[in-house]
């Protein structure tokens, strides 16, 4: 199940999840087999992979990308996400 918050910030406000580059993806499903958080789902009779549950993705984890031979998975810029988390925390604090 998805984490509801990360560092006190609602998980859905943190855009951290993989993006699949379909020009590179070979549908080998290594990432899907690897990820224990069910971020990915197979579609079209198992021939195509989609990021079905982005908020299940563990914030700052990029381990699935390391299983990807064709280098088809990318993640957002980490410092930008950290800045966003700090900003949201600050906004919550002054409320």
């Amino acid at each position, binding site marked *: 199940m998805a984490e509801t918050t990360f560092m006190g910030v609602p998980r859905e406000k943190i855009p951290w999840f993989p993006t699949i580059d379909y020009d590179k993806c070979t549908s080998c499903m290594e990432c899907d087999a690897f990820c224990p958080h069910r971020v990915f789902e197979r579609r079209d009779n198992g021939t195509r992979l989609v990021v079905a549950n982005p908020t299940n993705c563990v*914030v700052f*984890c*990029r*381990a699935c990308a390391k299983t*990807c*031979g064709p280098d088809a998975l990318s993640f957002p810029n*980490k410092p930008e996400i*950290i800045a966003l988390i*700090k900003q949201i925390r600050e906004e919550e604090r002054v409320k």
Partner: protein
Amino acid sequence: MKHAILSCTGLDKPEGSVAREVAIRSADAIGGAIICPVLLNRAPARYKKELSEGALIVVDGCSTRCATKLASRLGAKVEQRVLVSDAVKASGRPLESTLHLGPNGTALVQTMVDELVRGLNAPATPSEAASAWETPTEYLVVTHDKFEFRIPVVDYLFNENDVWVRVSDAVARVGISDYMQQKLTDISYFEPPKTQAAVDQFGELGSVESAKAVFEIISPVSGTVVGVNPAVIENPALINEDPYGSGWLVEIKLTDLAQDQALLLDGAAYADVVKRKAAEE
């Protein structure tokens, strides 16, 4: 110690050509034996001697990491591992797209062989402040089903990625929590970060692996890697046995602890996170 080198053969990719060349030249440089992954897969007994007598070095071409997976499937203990596609990124020079090595590929082979040989000759060592790091005695305990997860009450801070940090002067030790080591079960490999590498808070500090999963170590603090735990590289099971003590992973010279602390949790707050995570599983 004798070494055996298991490499990607990668006949259809430039990274494979580099991996093969790195294996051959490293074997020359250190007097190691080369293991053919295809033959190892077909007839593991052929390499029984090499695998039992020597420390295993694995050279993977791309992130599919066939050589690593083969070693893991056969239960072979890996001492050191290198990945060509990571080295390409670190070099900032893309490989030529041909299967024959071009100038960038040739330069990369030399760099990788030099680093590999240097790493074997001079393993990273921890700082001299060992006496300041005693295993904690007081714990909070989070209970879930038949599991008990311990969390030290004092001296330790945590991030929500299940990594702890303990500070002494300007140096911090980092490791994974009892909750995470139990979740991973028997840890078989610790891939350390490079010493002297700069790391940001929430940057990567290598990974630990079990048969169940690969866990990326997300740094709780920013600074410079000044040491990795040689005992854990030798015996990764220490992480399971003593996650807050002798199973520590990395030492970091801190750059801005005060700022990092804004995004860290004390033991009580981390206990709440563990309760929530355990309940959600």
